[in-house]
């Protein structure tokens, strides 16, 4: 419990740092670019939204910075992130909440597949070290160094344009009504294979190498040797003895890698015109939609923090040592 509280406190502090960065950044920019933007949106659709933006960017207001900061924090806690320019007159919150489920679906599935597959391959490559499997390692270095969005473009060229196995872009067949019908779900899966596959291929090397490294340290341990000496089947020695202990540090590094994977996935969405937050981010950048950009930064950060907290809970559930108070 103590472990969990410590982690929760850490993520709260991180969220506060992210919120504060979000508040400071527009104020550090030369010539307040937001002022120009506001000429375009003189007439805000609702006064609450207008006030949220005034506090967030410090324009058309004579309040002191500290009181702007307090107002801004209050607004964010109430989900008031201002009005989007590129999706005018929709509020930032509504634009993001329309896009978020698609990203959660895509990135969530891809990360899970990548983590499980990468960990399994890492176990295999550590157990079979010194054989041909070692030659795979430079290949994984190459995979991890490819830009996600570029790999997506190559995948589109091969599997959609040349072979015609998968659709070119989008998240579902627009001719099917958006309901939870079997045909709609089937089209979502069909459209999701290429983007999710791209994310899996680009991110798998990290999990693979991480698991391999820890496994290599675990295999020489006495209990693994003992298990082998007892005559247990290899599969049991590998999974129940070595991998079971090695997986914990890999789970911990999940937290640190997630932010990077999410960044790559966001760019992947743009290549596939996938209607998630990445696509919205592209719109925001193209249209200099600052409120939307900053809202996206906040929401994506909070999602990553929540995912990290979940990983920590899983860690604590798997490793009894963390549950005992750490003195």
């Amino acid at each position: 419990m103590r472990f969990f509280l410590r982690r929760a406190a850490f993520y709260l502090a991180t969220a506060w740092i992210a919120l504060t960065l979000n508040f400071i950044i527009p104020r550090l920019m030369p010539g307040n670019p937001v002022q120009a933007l506001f000429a375009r949106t003189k007439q805000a659709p609702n006064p609450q939204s207008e006030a949220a933006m005034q506090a967030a960017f410090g324009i058309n207001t004579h309040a002191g910075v500290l009181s702007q900061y307090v107002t801004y924090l209050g607004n964010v806690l109430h989900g008031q992130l201002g009005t989007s320019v590129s999706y005018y007159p929709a509020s930032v919150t509504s634009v993001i909440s329309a896009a978020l489920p698609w990203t959660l679906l895509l990135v969530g599935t891809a990360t899970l597949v990548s983590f499980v597959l990468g960990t399994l391959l890492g176990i295999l490559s550590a157990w079979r070290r010194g054989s041909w499997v070692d030659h795979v390692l430079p290949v994984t270095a190459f995979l991890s160094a490819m830009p996600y969005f570029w790999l997506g473009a190559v995948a589109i060229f091969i599997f959609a344009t040349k072979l015609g196995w998968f659709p070119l872009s989008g998240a579902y067949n627009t001719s099917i009504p958006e309901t939870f019908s079997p045909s709609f779900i089937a089209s979502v899966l069909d459209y999701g294979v290429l983007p999710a596959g791209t994310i899996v291929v680009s991110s798998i090397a990290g999990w693979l190498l991480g698991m391999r490294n820890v496994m290599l340290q675990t295999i020489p341990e006495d209990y693994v040797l003992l298990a082998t000496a007892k005559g247990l089947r290899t599969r049991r020695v590998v999974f129940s003895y070595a991998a079971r202990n090695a997986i914990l540090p890999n789970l911990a590094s999940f937290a640190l890698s997630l932010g990077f994977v999410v960044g790559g996935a966001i760019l992947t969405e743009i290549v596939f015109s996938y209607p998630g937050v990445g696509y919205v981010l592209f719109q925001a950048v193209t249209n200099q939609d600052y409120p939307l950009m900053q809202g996206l930064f906040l929401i994506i950060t909070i999602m990553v923090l929540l995912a990290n907290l979940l990983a920590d809970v899983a860690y604590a559930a798997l490793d009894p040592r963390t549950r005992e108070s750490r003195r």
Partner: protein
Amino acid sequence: MKPNRRWSVRIGVGLLVFFVLMAIAGPWFVGNPSATDGPLHAGPSGGHLLGTTNIGQDVLSQLVVGARGSLVVCTIAAAIATVLAIAVGVTSAVLGGVWDEVLSLFTNAMLVIPTLPLVVVIAGYMKNAGAVVVAIVIAATGWSWSARILRAQALSLRRRDFVLAARASGEGSFRIVTFEVLPHLVPLIAAQFLGVVLYAIMTQAGLAFLGIGSVTDWTWGTMLYWANSSQAFQLAQWWWYVPPGLCIALFGTALVLLNSAIDRVADNRLVERAPRRPMLLRRRGAGPVGAADALVAGEEVPA
């Protein structure tokens, strides 16, 4: 060293030298990348080895000039980020106490916050930001991992005999850091530098792809931006978008291979030199933390 490893180092060095030479000398041998005098979106041919873009620019010229642009950005970014990482990480370890808590909290928080959206928020305000500005923004978000590794290493160095001896003989903190601690961190700093170069080249490509920063400065990222915005992906003009992505991936591969090679060398040295201290002096959780251990033991987060 196993033969396999020796090969991976050779491949890494070879690729790195190739791209550095391409960036330094290449632009003298190719034409103007912005000149629009070629045929429109033509595939590879004798006149244009890698074909042309939709407005008749030579892709090979762009690739070579883009190498310089990309490498300049990521070298500047990595240099700044490494200095920041040393400043934060080593200071944190040397000062200890409350300062260590605060700096570590900040480092770990920056590590968890997803960097791409953060970079977009910062750089998005600067339309047509030049290479240096983009490099500074990338550095501002890319130092935290190195700072954490350097802190862990500096912490273990701080308790070694030679540092204790220096302290006992009355040397000041600044002198101890610069003359006793930093020299031992050099291999680790080199590995971290390469790591940040990798982060920087990927982030720069991502930013340019989004259209942030000056899209008229040639880099591999801006090539991909123009390819995307001219529908090259949909029109299957592979000769236009495959080369820049491949260059990024190969350059990145070189960095990963060299990075792990340096890590191994540094790690071996640390294992050999790890001192056997009397039990009484050994504080809990303060064992010598090798680079590899620190990489793996991600859970030791003093929140």
